[in-house]
């Protein structure tokens, strides 16, 4: 008893504990704060809406996590979501059916991820230059093929996806939960996951042991692109149309969720639950501020402050 109490105290005094659990601590803190200040916040309806709103960011944060774990970054993530959505809309509008449209969207965004990975590894160009380049290229491509116009997507499948429920959660939430489970297994229970962390930790040492570090990195960027495609489907389902507009806060928040989730920006250290909870926390922040009628202008400021704080705490991570 004595021992467990003193070890708990030691744990609470250890800054690396707070760094590892920043997203959980932040989420619990926000729930208490908003729960006290806004009576609606903890209502079942609001919590369900919150989870629904978080689903897209959770999926994107998972993609970003795989890339950051290799000590890279994917700045083209939000642009890929836009391009995926535009392609989905155009193919659906061409009458090829919703499933073909969804598959094409995911294939396109995965191909962008693959391209990012190949340029970064075999092209030996720094990750932020490559993904900044594809960010710009995709933005242009999306505008060109859509003519800058939104496309309505009237599909019963997407309507059901957006508004249907199974048990307590809407389908998008289940998609996010499935993504979390699959990504968690891939990261912690497969050889790929270990090789990913080894590549992000010390790429040269990993290569000396025969790990094909370039392939691992390319796979990570492709996974990121794949997640962007899934997010594009959820986005089109949610708003009912495909718009050639980039939601830049999705990109910033995906990186923010990864940082809050205790993933090292230097690579080699990652989890899936951490960033997923980080994404929940950021969504809860926006949701709570809205309920408190704080102007939407303050939301980016609040996110920025929290992310920089989280990055500061991360310095204590062991």
């Amino acid at each position: 008893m004595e021992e467990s109490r003193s070890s708990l105290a030691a744990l609470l005094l250890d800054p690396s504990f707070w760094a590892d659990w920043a997203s959980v601590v932040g989420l619990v803190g926000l729930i208490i704060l908003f729960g006290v200040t806004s009576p609606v916040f903890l209502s079942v309806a609001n919590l369900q809406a919150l989870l629904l709103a978080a689903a897209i960011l959770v999926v994107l944060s998972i993609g970003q996590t795989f890339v950051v774990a290799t000590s890279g970054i994917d700045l083209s993530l939000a642009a890929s979501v836009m391009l995926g959505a535009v392609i989905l809309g155009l193919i659906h509008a061409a009458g090829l059916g919703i499933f073909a449209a969804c598959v094409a969207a995911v294939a396109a965004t995965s191909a962008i991820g693959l391209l990012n990975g190949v340029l970064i590894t075999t092209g030996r160009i720094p990750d932020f230059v490559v993904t900044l380049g594809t960010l710009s290229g995709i933005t242009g491509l999306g505008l060109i093929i859509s003519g800058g116009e939104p496309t309505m997507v009237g599909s019963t499948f997407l309507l059901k996806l957006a508004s249907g429920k199974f048990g307590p959660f809407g389908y998008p939430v289940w998609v996010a939960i499935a993504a979390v489970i699959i990504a968690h297994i891939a990261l912690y229970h497969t050889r790929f996951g270990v090789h990913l962390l080894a590549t992000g930790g010390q790429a040269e040492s990993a290569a000396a042991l025969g790990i094909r570090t370039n392939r691992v990195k390319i796979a990570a960027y492709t996974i990121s692109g794949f997640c962007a495609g899934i997010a594009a489907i959820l986005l089109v389902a949610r708003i009912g149309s495909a718009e050639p507009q980039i939601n830049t806060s999705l990109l910033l928040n995906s990186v923010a969720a990864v940082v809050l989730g205790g993933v090292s920006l230097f690579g080699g250290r990652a989890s899936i639950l951490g960033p997923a909870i980080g994404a929940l926390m950021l969504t809860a922040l926006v949701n709570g501020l809205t309920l408190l009628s704080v102007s939407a202008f303050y939301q980016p400021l609040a996110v920025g402050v929290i992310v920089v704080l989280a990055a500061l705490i991360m310095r204590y991570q062991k």
Partner: protein
Amino acid sequence: MSAAIHIPPTEAILACQGLSKHFGGIRAFTDVDFQARRGEVTAVIGDNGAGKSTLIRCLVGVHQPDGGAIHFDGRPHPFANPDGARKAGIETVHQNLALIDELTVAQNLFLNREIVRRIGPFALLDRKAMKTQARAMLSKLSINVPSVGQRVRRLSGGQRQAISICRAAGSGAKLVVMDEPTAALGVQETANVEALIRRLREQGVSVILISHNFDQVRRLSDQIWVMRAGKMVATVRSAETTGNELVALVTGAA
């Protein structure tokens, strides 16, 4: 002064003839002949920059030599990559390229050789088996670490080097290559690693040891090869040489 070699090929576990490697304009080594005998500790000594690390990186597939032949276990064997060398039975403890800090002791010991369980089309890591075997590997070489589930970042330099060597030795390798395994270690840690190398030899593993500690080399090895400025300049039996002779060979003062 030239390297005289009188080793029957069957006794050599690893041999190379006429090996060269250049990096752009930089000549790492040229026209190197070298052999390591089965069951022996073979040392390669030489000053910094003599080409020792690059030579062994060529032998184990990290670099591709520009010219020359490599034989391993009696067969011609140029390794296209480190994986090929590992599969053939050569394990390497690289200088400065050792463990992954953020992974645990067990994960490092099984890196790129993970034990998996097949579940339908999927292969999932068998962490329990890896932890159990990791403990057995460490205790076989009397290596002490607090826990195989611990990240190696928190271990001392000596513990880390011991784990690198354990990883190299633990897989039933025929040949373990070590590049300056005690360069960054204190006195006690060096003694532990030297004891580890003796234990490996007793277990019948062939060892190539790169060092520039002449006393260590005479204590541990059976045969010594000397490199100077990218050339293999001499080879002597360890029992038949002196520290002064080695110094002369390495510096070219003889």
